[in-house]
């Protein structure tokens, strides 16, 4: 059983459209992170959300942490080709929170 389920697994939309991807779990987390990964590169951190209900904005990207801190969403407004990539959510775990567990990922393709 996956700790973090991301949906959809694949998403392909036209430039200029809006989209939302999700990261869901049955567990409660103290914080959650979103990363973006481009082909052949390592993931890059986009944001960390900590408080239930928290909303953070990063230009056209809006991240929300669920009230119960079990899930999160990423909304992109007016998608651009540069948004193409693999979006991964991740949560801390392990003794002393040393480890990150990653979700299954959403592969996003923006068509020019």
């Amino acid at each position: 059983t996956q700790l973090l389920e991301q949906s959809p697994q694949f998403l392909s939309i036209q430039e200029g459209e809006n989209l939302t991807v999700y990261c869901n779990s049955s567990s409660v987390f103290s914080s959650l992170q979103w990363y973006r990964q481009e082909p052949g590169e390592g993931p890059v951190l986009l944001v960390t959300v900590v408080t239930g209900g928290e909303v953070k904005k990063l230009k056209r990207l809006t991240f929300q942490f669920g009230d119960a801190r079990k899930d999160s969403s990423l909304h992109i407004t007016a998608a651009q080709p540069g948004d193409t990539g693999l979006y991964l959510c991740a949560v801390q775990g392990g003794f002393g929170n040393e480890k990150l567990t990653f979700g299954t990922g959403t592969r996003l393709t923006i068509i020019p």
Partner: protein
Amino acid sequence: SQTIHQWPATLVQPVGSPLSLECTVEGTSNPNLYWYRQAAGRGLQLLFYSVGIGQISSEVPQNLSASRPQDRQFILSSKKLLLSDSGFYLCAWKGGRAWREQFFGPGTRLTVL
């Protein structure tokens, strides 16, 4: 500023051959270090992590091993590669003021034939 290096960038090895992938971090001290493997286009699977020199925690049973001979050096090894060891290997570090986030290296693409 901190940087993380991995080499080689790509590697093609025959089944049964040994493996050594290296990761080094600059600009920080006593980082946590991590090795991940990623199957094509999917999430990351944590293989090993280290909180200090000589301290290695293994997450999954496998054909691989890790070592940390120096504070900012992390090595992933195998004595005999299997076909199933193919994948994209990522090293990451965490520490300092950014205590929640992990910062990833550029990765090594390993193909076992």
